[in-house]
């Protein structure tokens, strides 16, 4: 062993990591879980002086198999629908105690778009200093992949199976960001696990802004979306590059920033990797029509947010995650 190299005892090394570990190893998420990655990245950027209220869902279940917990920060499980209400109470109590600890609310898309929505809207309306993070995996995953208000049009779930009457989910993905923006909160943004430095920047920006702030993180679910576990980041990236999941920031309801797409990819590049869209590649006219429909949705997103980039930029879908020797990309 030379002086420069060393064999490392992982146990010791784990406790010397040059970053805050909000979410520890040993959690029970599936292999390649995008939600676990997203929660790890969010807590790293927001912590360490934070508390979390977590709605029911995969994140809650896989991190806290009693008597263990994967969290290294104060964390409470609310119920499915009330993470925002619990977080609001925590924030009020901390304020009362004169403490500076900040509050995060975590929920899946079900706990945000659907059952958690009224508590969320109320918390936003009352102006609590809480960052609400929606881990958007586009279905009710923890109960075995049922459609939610976030499930994209034409995706297959157990409650939106493709068949003779329809091609997967009939309805559209709810535009939750626009709804949140309509609360005229100081900051609301989308992020993706495929763009970690962008995600971290947005978490910090939200924390710095304060007040009720909202972040929707696109988090592929290999199990529910039906892709190989190693493709999580690739799938997430394609969602952004196709325009199906635009990365945008809004302040007080106004669009203030987007991640431009340098090379717009056809939606089929994204869809093809996922079993939940398998029926769209059957080759029949209904499938063709749905593919065109999804392409039109992506086109409309690109048009609406003016996502098409104008050449090579440092901050665009190709430049934002460029690597450098020594890792200064993540600094």
């Amino acid at each position, binding site marked *: 062993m030379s002086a420069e190299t060393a064999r490392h005892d992982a146990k010791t090394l784990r406790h010397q990591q040059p970053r805050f570990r909000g979410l520890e190893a040993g959690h029970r998420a599936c292999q390649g879980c995008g939600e676990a990655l997203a929660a790890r990245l969010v807590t790293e950027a927001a912590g360490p002086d934070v508390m979390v209220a977590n709605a029911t869902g995969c994140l809650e279940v896989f991190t806290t198999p009693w*008597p263990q917990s994967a969290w290294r920060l104060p964390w409470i499980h609310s119920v499915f629908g009330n993470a925002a209400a619990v977080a609001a109470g925590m924030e009020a109590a901390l304020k009362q105690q004169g403490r500076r600890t900040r509050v995060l609310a975590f929920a899946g898309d079900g706990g945000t778009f659907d059952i958690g929505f009224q508590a969320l809207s109320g918390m936003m309306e009352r102006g609590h200093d809480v960052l609400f993070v929606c881990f958007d995996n586009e279905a009710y995953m923890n109960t075995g992949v049922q459609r939610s208000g976030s499930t994209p049009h034409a995706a297959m779930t157990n409650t939106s199976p493709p068949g003779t009457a329809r091609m997967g989910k009939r309805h559209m993905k709810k535009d939750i960001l626009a709804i949140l923006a309509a609360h005229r909160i100081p900051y609301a943004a989308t992020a993706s696990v495929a763009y970690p430095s962008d995600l971290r920047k947005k978490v910090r920006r939200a924390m710095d802004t304060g007040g009720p702030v909202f972040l929707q993180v696109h988090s592929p679910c290999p199990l529910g979306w039906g892709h190989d576990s190693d493709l999580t980041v690739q799938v997430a990236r394609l969602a952004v590059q196709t325009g199906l999941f635009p990365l945008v920031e809004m302040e007080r309801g106004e669009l203030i920033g987007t991640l431009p797409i340098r090379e717009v990819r056809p939606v089929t590049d994204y869809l093809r990797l996922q079993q939940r869209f398998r029926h769209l590649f059957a080759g029949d006219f209904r499938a063709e029509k749905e593919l065109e429909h999804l392409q039109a949705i992506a086109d409309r997103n690109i048009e609406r947010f003016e996502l098409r980039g104008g050449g090579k930029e440092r901050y665009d879908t190709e430049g934002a995650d460029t690597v450098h020797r020594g890792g200064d990309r993540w600094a």
Partner: protein
Amino acid sequence: MTQIPPGAFAQPGTSLEFKTGSWRVQRPVHRHRAAPCHAACPAGEDAQAYLARVEVGDLQGAWETLVSANPLPAITGRVCPHPCETACNRGQYDEAIGIHAVERYLGDEALRREWPYPVPAPGSDAPRVAVVGAGPAGLAAAYHLLRGGCRVTLVEALAAAGGTVRTAIPRYRLPLDTLEAETARLLALPGLDFRPHTQLGRDVSLEELRSEHAALFLAPGRRKGQEWNADFAIPGDLHTGLHLLETWVAEGTLPDHPGAVAIVGGGNTAVDLSRVLRRQGVPSVHLITHQRIPAPGVPAEDVMRANPREVAQAVEEGVTIHEHRGVRRLILRGERVVGMELVHMKKLPDADGRLQRVAFEGTETVLHVDHVIPAIGQEVDPAGFEALVERGRIPVDPWWGRVQGQTHLFAGGDARGDHGSVSEAVGDGRRAALGILAVLAGESLEPPTPPEPVPFSDLNLHYFEPAPAAREPVLPPQERRGLEEVEGGLDLHGVRHEAHRCLSCGECLACDNCWTLCPDQAVLKTRERAADGSHYVFDYDYCKGCGICARECPTGYIRMES
């Protein structure tokens, strides 16, 4: 204070008690693999490794990495046709890394700053090895033998070291200063006994060398011009191309060639001579070759043997190249050449599938020239070691260069007869030195399995940005008159730009991707280097084997293995 019942809470981070590593089917491992540039370098240089040193600003470390394979970087950086760049993965992305320019820069810096070669002084009981021929092959062998702890007697027929590089490569491609400085530094290494003016077969015999040395390496090059055995009449005063070129390189002058000259051949000698004649003011210089000008899509066996960029520069300088053409006969008036009859030719497969040259009847043309110079190749001058030479070459084992039927006698470089470039000669010298060291240590010689280079498809290109290559200044054709170097090399800025563009194929560049993208905190970062040379350690207690790290590693350094 209210007591929380134990069933309602858990201690932080206690999930570590549960080893999710047991779920794993495949595990990620760090696997260094040879970069294509490394696998393609005939001298055995690992460009990826020294580009990485350059990128972090460690120029001397980069040079040391470089000269652990090739002691002549200032020379090869200028004259090598750089197959590394042809193989470079970045060429499939935008433009290949300008490896030769980095190599050249490091070589020049070492000369300027006198960085010492990493060679120890030999011990008193060091074995003695003789090397015959101080061309690139002999110099490289001597250097690697010294590195391996031997003493070396370097026997050279001429007055100075350098071989064909000194005698035939024109100075506008390789300045004399550079050649002298780099060879002089090698000759001054401790343990080296350089004997100029000593020709094997004239001044010393093979048996004498054998009796005084533990092993021998022969690198006499191919110095004897081949006879132009044409089945037509040729004038008596014909000079070979190599002879003329060597005269010009040594003396700076040539016999007058007014009017038009035709050079027959498509190798380095033909092309260099054509350019020299243009510099001498010959208005019309023709090159007649069976092959074709190097260009994308031209099959390798049909391409002129000269370095592609030299061919291109010759054309820029006004040389006319007649491709796929053969000489039918010379048109003579008495002894005087007044023209030549050319015919279109091509290599086509015969009944047995072997490629044969075919001349096409009815395609004859006449070219009016006043002189014709054959530059059709050289062979080994066997004087002094006749028994080892077969049909103008010394047959050897292709990897180590051990002469057939011998145990302690090795040969390499041009004398092998199956290749002809400086970097190939350097590689031969290096491998033969390693072979000799192994034999002296009583080991047997097994050919190693050549490394599988990292294919382009194993890189994740999403993490790189397109960037144009740095351009070397090149003397405009109208200014290429004298000995001034045509290619200007890159400055430090350009060199670092190229190093920064390198994709680090097959080697960790410490980008943090794996550390950042693991959903399970199973990639841990180290402050120093980890045992495998990266800065990261997989914690297999928790790694579930999802494969994200391997998929997102930009350089193909992480592999999933069962």
